[in-house]
């Protein structure tokens, strides 16, 4: 215990982060190690290139969007607390389900998780998944064998399914509703961040 807390000292603002995100010491240390590995030039922050250097991400069809969720356009760099905060979305939801309502919603709540997923679609940040945005996403996700017409009809049908107010775009609420049967906790949690 003593050694780990002394190790924890080298992580800036570790205690606050733990409080905020609910990560354990091990998690924080683990993530910090990773952060240092990614930060090859030891600047103390990550840049877009650092993410792009991760090989596997290049073959991930939505890798760019994921990177975009870490390093949002406009802010070139990402420091460790922000790094942890983004990853906090992927912590499994706590077993104690009744949380006092006064606290701000933790990052691993269902809504926040969905927000994160939603932002992957909503690249222009207007709070809606437009037809074009969905098309782009699908195009990124679909094999090239699907033709445009198919793509269009898929997109059209998908929007039609989810679009409750018939404005031709999917708002966050509509998005939330359309995936309400999905077990988000299963799908958006990784075990090692427990």
């Amino acid at each position: 215990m003593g050694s780990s807390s002394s190790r924890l000292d080298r992580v800036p603002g570790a205690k606050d982060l733990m409080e905020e995100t609910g990560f354990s010491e091990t998690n924080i240390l683990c993530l910090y190690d990773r952060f240092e590995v990614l930060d090859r030039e030891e600047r103390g922050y990550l840049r877009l290139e650092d993410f792009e250097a991760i090989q596997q991400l290049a073959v991930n069809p939505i890798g760019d969007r994921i990177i975009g969720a870490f390093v949002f356009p406009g802010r070139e760099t990402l420091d460790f607390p922000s790094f942890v905060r983004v990853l906090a979305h992927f912590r499994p939801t706590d077993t104690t389900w009744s949380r006092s309502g006064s606290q701000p919603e933790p990052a691993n709540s269902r809504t926040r998780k969905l927000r994160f997923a939603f932002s992957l679609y909503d690249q222009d940040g207007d709070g809606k998944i437009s037809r074009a945005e969905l098309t782009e996403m699908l195009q990124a996700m679909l094999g090239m064998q699907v033709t445009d017409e198919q793509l269009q009809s898929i997109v059209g049908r998908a929007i039609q399914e989810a679009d409750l107010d018939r404005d031709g775009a999917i708002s966050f609420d509509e998005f939330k509703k359309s995936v309400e049967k999905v077990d988000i906790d299963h799908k958006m949690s990784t075990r090692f961040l427990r």
Partner: protein
Amino acid sequence: MKRCGSVHLWLWRSVVLICLVLGVSAVNGESKSDTHHHGNGSSITGIPIVSFKWHHVETPYLIVLWILVAGVAKMVIEANHHVTSVIPESALLICVGFLFGGIIWGADQKQTFSLTPTVFFFYLLPQIILDAGYFMPNKLFFSNLGGILIHAVIGTCWNAASVGLSLWGCHQGGAMGDIDIGLLQYLLFGSLIAAVDPVAVIAVFEEVHVNEVLFIMVFGESLLNDGVTVVLFNVFDAFVSLGGEKINAVEIIKGIISFFVVAFGGSLVGFVFGLLISLLTRCTKNIQIIEAGFIFVLGYLSYLTAEMLSLSAILSIAFCGICCQKYINANMDEKSVITVKYVMKVFANGSETIIFLFLGISAIDKTIWVWNTGFILLTVFFVFVYRCIGVFFLTWIQNKFRLVPLEVMDRIIMSYGGLRGAVAYGLAMMLDENKIKEKNLMIGTTLIVVYFTVILQGITMKPLVTWLKVKRASANEITLIEKVQNKVFDHMLVAIEDISGQIGHNYMRDKWKHFEEKWMSWFLMKPSARKKHDLVFDVFHQLNLKDAMNYVAEGERRGSLEFIRNETAFIDFKKKFADEYSEAMPDITVDMSDSYAAHSSMRRDTVPSISLELHDQNTNGLRETEDINTHHLLQQHLYKGRKQHRHKYSRSHFTVNQDENEVQEIFQRTMRTRLESFKSTKMGVAPPKTITKHPKKDQQQKMPNGKSTDNGKYCHCDDDDFEFSGDDGASGYDPSAGSFPMRVTYRPGAGIENPVFMPDLDPMAPMQIPPWLAEAELDSSTVALSQRAQTGLPWTPSNLQRLAPLRISTRSTDSFMMADTPPPPPPPAKDTK
């Protein structure tokens, strides 16, 4: 309703009648059996024209009659939906069994028919387990295998030991009165009563639709612990026959070792037979008619082999089913797969029905009822309580390791779902009367436990699930966006794992998958299944099917079935189609011609399967069929995440491993966008990626339902298109038609050129054209560059272009329509959800 009632009455009468006939004939059978011999031996005075030879056919006749009775009973029960929604079918069948048993008892004054262990273990159980294994949702099963094994092995041992010991303790305390059962016998009894029965569990949980994790936990446990119980039973049986004083540490250790050997050995036998089946179906191309039979024959053989080697037969046949499903579904002809599926269901449902029926009938037998209040009540009590304790303790341990812990509600349902069934009864019947004096008491108690769990817990399960608000399985309808989103989640998790540099929990699975795809598939799948026909054509085929369906549906919608009755029109359509494309792709035209058959079978396909189709789409009506096509399209073409496993099995299509190409494709695309954004930032132009508001996009929009409702009309136009669209027929169309060469471009290894080296485009171009069109244009330029490469293709581009008009024309007329028609009204079918 009234008419329905009268029908029931009629059915009932007929059932009772059959039953009476049976009863009487059984009596006759008994009384005549001794006269049989000299009847045959006596000299024949003349040639009888007709003779009544009951004994000649007695056994098979009775068997078949019973099957018929069981089937009719099930039919009658299923006809009353309002009853089955409250009381599970299994409980009702048992009650019907009581009734029949009573009738037989009344006729014979003794129970002529009862379930014997031989019949049960050799002829009724195997197909049920095989069915369960074959339809097991593999991904779900293996991702929860740890938990399932904990419950199946440790939980079962715990149940056996605790129930046995507690009963013994109570016996010592004097709660049972004067019965002759020793400690070992109690443990033996504990072990036979410990198993949760898959048959009972499926029957109850099928109605309830709990969430899939909970379902697989209960179901997987019940499947595997049957094997475990049988092993335990055999070990204790050996102990009992060995006698208390001879048991020493060595024997106990031998018992434990044999437990593992039997369990794992059985699984191994099953695995080997699974491979064998897969291998065999690799070479059955010429005997497609009987290839479905191999599954059953070899499955049964694996059961018998394991039994012969005194390994766990249940585990063997279960794993046989689990292992072979993927390969045989890929290897066999589509029709054979359907056959297997249906026959499996027929067998499994049939024996399930018979088992429950006989569980009821067997109860009406005075000879087995030895009442001992203390023993019976305590058993029921202990069985229930220790199940709860065991489940809660084990899930508590598991929750420390689970990604998503099992909730309290789930745990309650898991404990409550500990239904005992026919396996326990079969084992009880197998007890040796010489060694166990109180065999009948044990049988009776087992029956009581079975009734208690199946009937009482079965009935209360549904209200309990509702009352506790247990997470249910999602409803049948999967939305497209959900499907896409699921895939996004997969990719997202993989990306996050990459970023955080962790070897995810799916590492081993990844490795296994790799191995599996590289070696097992190569070994066990026939080449044509591995590399089915080109995906492009698959999609094209799908689209054509859709169009054809639209064509028919539209004709029907307009109230005229004329064009179906009118043979010439239809055949004309077909012939024209065949003429046009026969040289390009003969197999598709063949498919096309029986697409109706295929689709109608697809629509009727609502076999209630135990597990995986819980969430399958309900397929009736056109919209759904269309949806399925689209779903299918998505299914096939969404990139697979690295940890992606299909945990639902798809009967008809097996997605070929196109990993390498996919990776290439994504990589190239990523690099291209990065390059573009790099270039554009250098030139001070906003990268096209961020452009999401396209001025032209609204024009491009095509109302999704416009297509489905209007298509029929255009089919005629399409026909015309066939005529005039020569090799260059499509080139005159608007830019949206520019998409078709894509299909050529992305043939693996053909026209793909590194897009990085593409000629520079006007950086402003993507501003005007939506990106997907921009992409298409890019691609067409690639095609132009790689003309030479394409000449080597099996299909020349000209052929492909001739394939295109069908869709292109649909689309172009559509967008043409869009210009002057108001947006079509919302589709009627959609709002009813």
